[in-house]
């Protein structure tokens, strides 16, 4: 039995958006909003700033979608726009990305200390690995979705994720969060 995917491909939606169909762009917005917020969060370390960056990235994409020559690469193209937007934001703030320090909800001080340490460890990672970790854990995105936005193969996502987590564990051990 053959099961057809009910989800339209990025390429179909992009081509429709390029012809002026706002609903198709809306479908792309629904599909990529959270991954793009996560990507921006990986750069900015601030969830509110990441939401703003994602809104700006979609505005640029909406204006310029007609110029996209490879519709199937929409995710990677949007990811590139998002990185540029966050770089501009960081430059205007004249500050690099701070460690993520959004306070968690009401939990015990020990757990909050652990989460702070985990965030610090993640923000010590090189940018590509930090992007991977944040995208994976921000909202549980699939390897396929992560690979689309980061423009790497799903198997590369898996391999790099394993290495990035290993580094996080090393940083945590170094900081006294024993084994």
């Amino acid at each position, binding site marked *: 039995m053959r099961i057809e995917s009910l989800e339209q491909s990025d390429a179909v939606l992009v081509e429709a958006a390029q012809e002026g169909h706002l609903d198709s762009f809306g479908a792309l917005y629904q599909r990529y909003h959270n991954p793009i917020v996560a990507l921006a969060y990986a750069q900015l370390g601030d969830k509110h700033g990441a939401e703003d960056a994602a809104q700006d990235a979609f505005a640029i994409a909406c*204006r310029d*979608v007609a110029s996209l020559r490879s519709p199937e*690469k929409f995710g990677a*193209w949007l990811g590139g726009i998002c990185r540029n937007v966050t770089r501009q934001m960081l430059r205007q703030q004249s500050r*690099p990305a701070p460690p993520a320090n959004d306070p968690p909800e009401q939990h015990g001080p020990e757990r909050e200390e652990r*989460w702070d340490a985990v965030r610090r460890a993640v923000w010590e990672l090189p940018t590509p690995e930090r992007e991977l970790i944040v995208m994976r854990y921000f*909202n*549980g995105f699939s390897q396929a979705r992560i690979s689309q936005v980061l423009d790497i193969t799903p198997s590369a996502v898996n391999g790099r994720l394993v290495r990035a*987590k290993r580094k996080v564990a090393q940083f*945590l051990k170094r900081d006294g969060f024993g084994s």
Partner: protein
Amino acid sequence: MGRVNDENWLDEALDSAIGSHDTQPDFEQWKANHPEAVQMLTSRTPPEAARPPAIRRIKMNTMLVKLAAAAVIAIAAIFGVTQLMQPEADQPAAVAQTLTGPMTHTFEDGSTVTLAANASIRTYGAAGRRGFEHLTGVIDVTVAKGKGQFIVTTPYGNVKALGTEFTLDLVDGTTANTKERVELLAVEVTEGSVEVSNDKGASVLKEQQKLVVEKDRAPYHAAADADVPARLSERMDAMVAAMEAGDTAAYTANYNMNYLYNLATGKAEYDPNLFGGTAEDAQRLQQALGNIESVEALAEAFRQGVNFSGVTSIYLRDIEVSADGRHATARLVTGEGSGRLRGSSPQWHYFDNDWWQVDD
């Protein structure tokens, strides 16, 4: 606490520390906030879908007009009407154009450039030629991978990239404090590598590295300057990073606080190599902080006096090391959000087994 080698423990910790399940897309709200972008997209709707095109009948009164029309139809048939009917978006961008920020432009190959406010570029008219001309301001460039070399030309040098991300800043102005003319290109690589060259020289820049190309000078990459000791280069990088981050504690760590404490409390002699100011400056330090209780308190007092607010960019133009290799002078230019430039020449000296900043 915690079993960091336990996969489940780490997954749970990462999920708790980073997870954000309250982020929900709201396209209706986004549309309401971005009417211009929406208008730009919807204005591309083919007009025939909305209303049938008006047909204008031309009355052919003479045989000459009829013959001309027949000839046009025949030529169109030979060359293919479909070629003439392609939508504009599918045509190669064969016309050079000047673009001004803020905006993002996507090239045919998928590469993008984001222009900050007041930044400008000129695209090439020749189809197939990858790159563009950088005219003014700050731009972020993301070069599509696997499509061949991509060259950005600037007044002070060319930047050649292969599948990479980098930022260019063309600075042209006069420093507010020293009244010095500054004309330079600053290059910072985010991912991959680029080659920066002009007729004076060339330098390859890797990820997270920066260099400056001044007008009529070879690209200057401090980390690759053979005249600069590696430790000094490292300390200079830390100085610039601290200034960019507004990290006053890290910046203060460039100074040898033990010597300054001893000088302030009268335990050390004034030495112009170790204290960048004059003997009178040293006396003023002793009068103001002679009773300071500790090295840490002095460091804190210094830290309180440092302020990098408003700084948006810092470029290290060059480092000059003295003949005896123990003293160095850096030249910096600092950009502020207002567009104002400031010049400075931090002095460094080697003593107590390390390089220390001795004034700013």
